[in-house]
């Protein structure tokens, strides 16, 4: 008795570590490896005697699922829930990251006052703003003018459509070269603002999230009336902003000739180091330069990391719950089939086909659950647009990105849950006493 308990404990330790290793492999493994494993399994089932036995036992198991549909749906729905929550949160993180990352490139640089981390904190005097555009690394257009835009970022409160409450929207005053600086910005409705006029164009995301930004509507900023004359799509974080002529914005907000930051197009991505060195060595300048890609990546890093950690923590706790649900279901399935399994063993089937069949059945149910959860999230949340408070204390509009990578992470989690949920019941089925099993009713 004592020896068998010791053996049981040893057996448990071995199987738990095997399960842990298998999960690590499953979650980390690339898809081609998983597909290769599936192919090997299929080949084994087709070509060897013991493999064919495994397949026929699995077939019987699968055929009896309709008889215990309630119990089996626990696995499917439980895992679908885990995968749906995981995929939704990961999609949120990657959507936020994508919105900000696309705002930056390696061959444009943003220059702000030394020490400032965001444009809203930065102030540059007119001389510094002009000096940095004179560096040789800054690209000049056909007319010999540097492709640079002195910009001013300010915040206004507007009511949000969803809540009716005021939220902060970013107003960006841009220079006349802003269009050649950001060729990805296209006007999708109306026209550009006229230079020197109190006209503005609104980003696609801002128009969706805030009330009163439709074409032709007017809004009051600092006592002056502005007209919305166009809508633009920049396919990045600028979509959350309102754009207007820098000089007019500065005048409205009494900012004089100062700007917040200057964005310049460099002659190439490799020119950035030289550009940074040049402005650092100029004693007249007290400024920092970053590539716009680095600037936007820094802004998104904190929040998207937080959402990812939260998503994985929540999904892990849910997964633990789902594993126990799956274990319950599969132990019950093995128990109801114990007579059948004992019969198979008695007529000469080995233990392996039994193990494989129980595992395979659980994994298939898990896969179904994973696909269901991923599909639900995809239908509900793909491109679902939300906004949150960004680094400039303003709303950043972004869409959930239910990408292939996110979906495949979800499916891998589902398979991992199925693996543990199936392994222990499978081992119990294999260790079933044949004589005792035959007596079961």
């Amino acid at each position: 008795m004592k020896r068998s308990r010791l053996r049981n404990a040893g057996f448990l330790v071995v199987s738990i570590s095997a399960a842990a290793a298998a999960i690590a492999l499953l979650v980390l493994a690339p898809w081609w490896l998983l597909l290769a494993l599936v192919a090997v399994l299929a080949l084994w089932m087709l070509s060897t005697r013991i493999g064919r036995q495994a397949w026929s036992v699995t077939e019987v198991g699968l055929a009896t699922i309709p008889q215990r549909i309630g119990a089996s749906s626990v696995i499917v729905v439980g895992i679908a829930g885990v995968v749906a929550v995981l995929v939704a949160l990961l999609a949120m993180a990657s959507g936020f990251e994508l919105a900000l990352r696309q705002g930056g490139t390696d061959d444009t640089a943003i220059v702000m006052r030394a020490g400032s981390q965001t444009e809203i904190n930065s102030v540059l005097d007119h001389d510094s703003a002009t000096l940095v555009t004179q560096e040789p690394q800054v690209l000049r257009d056909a007319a010999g003018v540097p492709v640079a835009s002195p910009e001013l970022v300010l915040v206004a409160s507007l009511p949000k459509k969803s809540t009716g409450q005021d939220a902060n929207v970013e107003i960006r005053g841009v220079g006349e070269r802003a269009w050649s600086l950001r060729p990805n910005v296209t006007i999708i409705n109306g026209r550009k603002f006229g230079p020197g006029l109190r006209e503005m164009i609104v980003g696609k995301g801002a128009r969706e999230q805030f009330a009163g930004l439709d074409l032709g509507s007017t809004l009051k900023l600092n006592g002056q009336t502005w007209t919305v004359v166009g809508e633009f799509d920049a396919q990045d974080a600028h979509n959350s902003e309102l754009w207007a002529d820098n000089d007019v914005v500065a005048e409205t907000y009494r900012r004089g000739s100062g700007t917040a930051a200057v964005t310049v197009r460099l002659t190439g991505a490799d020119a950035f180091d030289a550009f940074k060195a040049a402005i650092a060595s100029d004693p007249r300048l007290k400024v920092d330069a970053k590539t716009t890609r680095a600037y936007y990546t820094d802004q998104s890093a904190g929040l998207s990391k937080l959402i990812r950690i939260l998503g994985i923590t929540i999904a892990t706790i849910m997964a633990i719950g789902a594993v126990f649900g799956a274990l319950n279901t599969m132990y019950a399935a093995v128990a109801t089939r114990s007579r059948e399994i004992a019969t198979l063993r008695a007529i000469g089937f080995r233990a392996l086909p039994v193990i494989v069949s129980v595992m395979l059945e659980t994994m298939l149910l898990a896969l179904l659950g994973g696909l269901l959860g991923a599909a639900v999230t995809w239908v509900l949340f793909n491109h679902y647009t939300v906004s949150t408070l960004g680094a400039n204390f303003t709303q950043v509009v972004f869409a959930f990105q239910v990408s292939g990578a996110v979906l495949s992470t979800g499916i891998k989690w589902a398979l991992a849950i199925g693996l543990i949920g199936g392994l222990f019941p499978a081992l119990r089925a294999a260790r079933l006493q044949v004589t005792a099993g035959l007596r079961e009713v």
Partner: protein
Amino acid sequence: MKYLQLVWSAMFRRKTRTIFTLLSVLAAFLLFGLLDSVRSAFAGAANSVAGVDRLVTVSKISFTLSLPKSLLPRIQELPGVATVTYANWFGGVYQDPKNFFPNEAVADNFFDLYPEWQLSAAERTAFHNTRTGAIVGESLAKKFHWKIGDKIPLQATIFPQKSGANDWTLDLVGMFRVTDPKQKSRESVLYFNWDYFDEARAFGNGNVGWYVTRVADRNQAQQVADAVDALSANSDHETKTQTEQAFNAAFVSQYGDIGLIVGAIMAAVFFTLILLTGNTMAQAVRERIPELAVLKTIGFSNPSVLGLVLAESVLLILLGGTIGLLLAGVVVDAVRAAVGEAVPMSRVGASIWLRGLGLMLLIGLIVGALPARRGMRLRIVDALAGR
């Protein structure tokens, strides 16, 4: 109560299954405890009763724009105003941008308006007398192991000094404590002297970020707010005045609808849980049909059989749920100890427990309903015959 023994042994009839189910319930309520703690931290910041007699006045266009200091005497003169103070966001960075905490320059009388910030008179005097003095919340001091007398170097992100330098060095002269758990996050703020800030900064001198007004009678708050806004109506620096409570609520809501996200996750979790435990209970009752028939034979009435099964499912959920919530309490306390009390997680207190226990009862009843009805309706003859 006298049937507790019976319910208990029925529940553990199949040990493994019950333990697995308990663990699933535990996981669900652990998650509930953690998420509800985050949700109530955000809701607490928005709905706290503190600050209903304080008004916050910011620029109407955006709270990032400053207001002229000339408004101060004019607000003070308004009827119904008890005290006025002002402050400005500094946005300094300590060592690394990752160490973010709010830091503000505040006027000398700032702490008069915040009696719930517990600060000794000696520390108040020291703050008054030290030009570069700073007062921090206890949680923040604990996080960075600061003690009174330490020098705290801050790197300016917005306001350089007149010399152009970004370094501001402050002297820690006091620490304040907040006892209200809902306001605990305020303990992560650093305050320093307005006079030092305004004299030394390179630009913006003479402007303030926002005014805080304490009204004499909180029922007059709206009238006073309107009167403050009327002072600057149609000027180029129009203001927007709200109670501090409303201001905080509006700010928190800008992060997004935390309640909705938490609600959606919880719905997914509990839907799964109901299905899972419902299945367990159905199995348990199915197995025990002959036993239930025996109970009925020896005289248990239909309602008492119903009650027994319902009691079993409620007990199952209560047991797992209670352990889960206890665990959530331990985890929240551990996180708060590790990260500092400013983390947006409120302690798993009475209100979370109350909601949790309510949910446990509800889910227990939902899950037990069908199996219990089956137990109640079964006919002794059929059940004993195994039909």
